[in-house]
């Protein structure tokens, strides 16, 4: 029986972790992710989990300890935000290149500077090429559900890659909203025990983790990581199907909202997708055929699937909550536009930068984006494709 509750996104993720009962959780606090290890530490103190909880002195160390534990054969994770992720930079690549299926509960926050504690995606977007799987959530429910599914994806024998479960700082991490929790035993049965194929604490099969790789092998090692990535999409779909069986909630690589007959669409990531759905409902009442694609899996990027979903759309706005400083847009914009190009799609596409440092996005703002798409369709010209939303001029 599912349990109806009301929780913040941080508390929801902490509860998912209690239900999973991982082996090792090293942590260092940083706003707005601090509550995740904080709640989890109380579960440890109360004997509700038997996790080895390691308070460390920095994020460099929390990720290093999670990597060490994972290499030893444990199910490990840590949590962080913003500059904490930046301080893990070096280790992110170590985790991925060693094919270690550990998890990171990331609560998205703007990178400094100027120093800012609020949400944007600059932290995880900067880490998009590190070789991690990245999944994003619209609300507390999705953050919880993604966390429950995380290890099934990352530990899958065809994948064996680290996974980043992202949610929007403050907007979902600190907002109390309704949620449905699964029974503890259902989560435990779903996630299962972790039995790594090779691990350092196995005397029967000695192995080296992280040795020097000379030029003769480095490229093959990187290609090997890409091979793991190739299998992620199918595993994500398989795990989602099984998850629907225990939860009744369906997930894919991305969510399509009102896309069946959409003439114009927005592609975006995270909590603003809910706000966009309200905007779409208002526009649909006026007969405007607006739709939304909300990215769940961002790395690897489901390019051909997204291009297929956009094939009948006349104009699309791709929304980036991070700058790319390319002079022509952000990272999601680049990914979607390249997907459209390779699919020979003829939608007119523009790329908006929005919501940096927590800049609020209202239903009216998103109605304005669709209004701009309507004009683009009428004129048959995308005009300036690199735009800012909600900027004070």
């Amino acid at each position, binding site marked *: 029986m599912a349990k109806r509750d009301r929780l913040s996104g941080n508390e929801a993720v902490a509860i998912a972790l209690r239900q999973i009962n991982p082996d090792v959780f090293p942590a260092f606090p940083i706003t707005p992710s601090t509550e995740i290890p904080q709640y989890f530490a109380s579960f440890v103190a109360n004997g509700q989990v038997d996790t080895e909880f390691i308070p460390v002195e920095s994020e460099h160390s929390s990720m290093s300890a999670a990597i060490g534990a994972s290499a030893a054969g444990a199910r490990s994770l840590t949590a962080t935000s913003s500059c904490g992720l930046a301080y893990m930079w070096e280790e992110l690549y170590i985790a991925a290149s060693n094919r270690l299926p550990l998890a990171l509960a990331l609560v998205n926050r703007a990178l400094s500077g100027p120093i800012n504690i609020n949400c944007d995606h600059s932290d995880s977007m900067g880490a998009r090429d590190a070789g991690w799987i990245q999944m994003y959530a619209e609300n507390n429910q999705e953050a919880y559900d993604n966390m429950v599914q995380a290890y099934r994806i990352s530990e899958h024998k065809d994948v064996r890659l680290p996974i980043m479960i992202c949610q929007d700082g403050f907007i*979902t991490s600190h*907002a109390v909203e309704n949620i449905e929790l699964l029974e503890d035993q259902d989560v435990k049965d779903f996630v299962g025990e972790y039995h790594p194929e090779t691990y350092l604490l196995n005397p029967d099969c000695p192995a080296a983790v992280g040795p020097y790789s000379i030029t003769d092998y480095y490229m093959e090692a990187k290609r090997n990581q890409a091979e793991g990535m190739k299998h992620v999409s199918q595993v994500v779909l398989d795990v989602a199907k099984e998850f629907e069986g225990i939860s009744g909630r369906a997930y894919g690589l991305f969510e399509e909202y009102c896309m069946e007959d959409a003439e114009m669409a927005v592609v975006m990531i995270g909590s603003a997708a809910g706000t966009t759905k309200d905007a779409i409902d208002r526009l649909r009442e006026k007969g405007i055929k607006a739709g939304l694609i909300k990215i769940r899996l961002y790395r690897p990027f489901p390019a051909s699937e997204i291009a297929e979903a956009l094939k009948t759309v006349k104009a699309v706005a791709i929304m980036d909550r991070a700058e790319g400083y390319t002079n022509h847009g952000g990272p999601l914009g680049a990914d979607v536009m390249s997907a459209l190009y390779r699919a020979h799609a003829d939608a007119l596409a523009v790329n908006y930068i929005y919501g940096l440092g927590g800049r609020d996005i209202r239903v009216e703002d998103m109605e304005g984006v669709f209004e701009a798409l309507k004009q683009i369709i009428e004129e048959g010209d995308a005009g300036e494709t690199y735009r800012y939303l909600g900027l004070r001029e």
Partner: protein
Amino acid sequence: MSNLTEIRWHGRGGQGAKTAALLLADVAFQTGKYVQGFPEYGPERMGAPITAYNRISDTVIRAHSNIYDPEYVVVVDESLLEAVDVTGGLKKEGAILVNTSRSKEEIIPHLKGYEGKVYTIDAHKVSMATMGRYFPNTPLLAAIVKVAGLMDQETFLREMRASFSHKFASKPEVIDGNMAALEMAFKEVQ
């Protein structure tokens, strides 16, 4: 969306405006509603103005923006009447609730011509009389529930006792004081 009620709280860091918004979300959830309770942080320090928000609805809430056109505003600290545009966007069919020892007539001139209903409560008086310390958020929570007609008093008090019993499990001696503050606030709000 006609069943949606939006509430904005103005307080200063450390006064419990965020906690009040979360408690209101809590008690509304207990009566079967869809809820949101969330803070908006400026500088993280005691005394800085902070805003907190509630959405309460019979249907799923998807919007994740701040609230600009609320039905109700709660002012936890009356010094904010001058410092912050507390009535900004406030619907005239709604109401503003101000924590003050002054009369309604003295407060109205500070509300920039707001045309809706004005309510006051002396949360300091209620808090000191019932809890012996100044926790403005408990009386204000009861007052806004009454002003906004979110639920009847009996349901509210029953759900709050259950909530306090959980929240204060390790210090049950404070439960009665908090409950007395809620009951007194119901009578005191004007």
